[in-house]
């Protein structure tokens, strides 16, 4: 019909009618606003990530080290051992899935334990590199198997007595100190503890390519 043909709009009406119409227009807009708000708030709230509301939920779980693996660690001297850990990961509503990783375990001699802090300035002197858990527990250090350069898995070279990354040649000492190559920091220690007679590790993914230790994810 439109503006030109509509009859009802030809006569502007009395001042009372005009003010009544203004009132109705305002109430209509207000209703629209209220409904919009009552819908917008919950639907937008629903997008807030769970990890933002419950950051502690993502703080990782302790994964037990099998008795055999721990024996290997205890028996090692001046040679790191590769330890396998397996754990359940839960991804939102999916059923828990089995996942596994390996870490490098080092048994420090008393001298190495004493000198650890001095030899690892990237862990202690640099505030950005600090971790909020003890790096050394009962003279054991557990390193993430991920190279802090670009995320490759490094190896232990028995000849060189160093950890060497096959990708770009970064080298680290037995205590994880950065010795050579492009890596921006030393190796990343993982939380390690003894609980009820079992050794336990928490796997953490750290951001690579930078001197600072920034946690990306826990298991």
């Amino acid at each position: 019909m439109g503006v030109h043909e509509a009859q009802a709009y030809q006569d502007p009406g009395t001042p009372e009618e005009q003010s009544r119409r203004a009132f109705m227009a305002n109430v209509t807009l207000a209703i629209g606003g209220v409904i919009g708000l009552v819908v917008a708030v919950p639907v937008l709230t629903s997008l807030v990530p769970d990890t933002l509301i419950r950051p502690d939920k993502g703080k990782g779980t302790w994964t037990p080290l099998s008795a055999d693996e721990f024996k290997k660690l205890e028996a090692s001297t001046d040679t790191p051992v590769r330890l396998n850990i397996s754990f359940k990961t839960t991804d939102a509503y999916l059923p828990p899935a089995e996942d596994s990783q390996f870490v490098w375990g080092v048994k420090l001699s008393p001298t190495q334990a004493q000198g650890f802090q001095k030899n690892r300035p990237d862990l202690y002197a640099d505030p950005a590199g600090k971790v909020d858990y003890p790096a050394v527990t009962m003279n054991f250090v557990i390193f993430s198997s991920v190279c802090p350069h670009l995320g490759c898995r490094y190896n232990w070279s028995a000849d060189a007595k160093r950890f060497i990354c096959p990708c770009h040649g970064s080298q680290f000492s037995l205590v994880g100190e950065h010795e050579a190559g492009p890596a921006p920091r030393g190796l990343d220690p993982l939380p390690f503890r003894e609980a009820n007679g079992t050794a336990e590790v928490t796997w953490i993914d750290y951001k690579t390519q930078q001197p600072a230790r920034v946690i990306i994810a826990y298991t």
Partner: protein
Amino acid sequence: MASIIDWIEQRTGAVSATTEFLTEDVPGGASYWYVFGSATIFCMILQIVTGIFLTFYYAPSAATAWESTKYIYDVVPLGWFVISLHYWGATAMIALMFLHLLQVLIWGAYKAPREMMWIVGVILLLVTLVLGLTGYLLPWDLNAAAASEVAISISASVPVIGPTIAQFLYDGTNLGTLTINRFYGLHVWLMPAALVLLAAAHLYIFRHNGSAGPPVDKDLKRLPQGRFWPNQMFMDAAASFAVFVVIVLLSIFSPAPLDEKADPTRAFIPFPAWYFLALYGLLRVAGASPGPVVPIANLLATVVIPGVLVTWLIVLPFLDRNPSRRLTKRPWAMGLTAISVLGAVALSVYSQSAIAQEQAQTPAAPAPAASAAAGAAVPAGGKGAQVYGANCSGCHGASGQGTPGTFPPLAKNAFVTGDPKPVVHAILYGLSGSIQVNGGTYNGQMPAWKGQLTNADIAAVATYVRSAWGNSAGAVTEADVAKVAK
């Protein structure tokens, strides 16, 4: 501000288009009688908005449909509210659509020149019912799967092409992950797209013809004209707001239900959505007819009667060609409308009460397959499981699911997994009177087992019910029982 609006108007024509849209005569003046259509559109928008946000979490597959829905309830902030708005919004939309249809029927507003608008409206109703049916499956809980199984089985009973239709709906020969995908595609993409396009066409045709106005045999142009904006819009907004308040209150005080995950081994009497109760009732009546007549009665109930009704609706404007819209001049149309409405209401009431009755009876005597499967699923409970199976499962169900209305479920029951003392007390001394568990009311009689079972047996069964079927509360010792039994 004004210059910005001018700038936009010059480049888009948006302001004049809006003005054009809002400037519309309402024959006979604005009226609350005209709000049903706009309130339906409001519900449609609400469904689209809430539906979009549900897809941020919902994952359509047999392994994730129920799990992701549960995640929406339990973890997603205000997720329960969004899903409940969608649930109650669907009911409101369909209810308003029926009212809208009824009003157009009674007022004879489908008559020339509005035949096309009417036909598009009838198709909109069908599309919305398909949306209701497909959405019903998606949560993939016991009721969703069982009700969809019934719906697809009904389509399979259509002569000749029925089995093929059913295979298309299942995407196979039975309900499964592909069925969920299929219903998801229909519910989330195809049907909403059809709904929006058809609703746009419906509105466009509405504007082309103008309002039908009240059912009087007068030249509409001679009636006093009211304004669409703001007078009619105000009433539309007020009605939509009232509907919205009801949806919000229902969502808060009666959130959308989510049953346990669909499990084909569990005997379950499904209940259809209320808007399908009449069709379901028709089917029950057919099933109850004398033996030899059943196939014909089934055909009538599943194909002929619904088909005739829809066809009648579509061709109505061409049958009822008398230009008069007065109610008294249209006895046939009015009579058939009244019979259809009364029949639908009676059938709905009948189905509702019949289903309630069946549900009250069924789980007390679970199908053998169901109890065997549940028994296998329960971790070896040893003595507690034996005591439970021999004394408790008759009422509380083989998998602790209870009996609706009478005996409460023990699975996922906070009382059972809470402080063990009242649990032991209930087993020892029984319980009576009405109780509430997870939103359901139960009014059965729990017998006292003191003297019937030893303290050791009671400890074992209490430990069992607190740790089986997803419960994970601590064990109860014989000494604990002895303390309460003093």
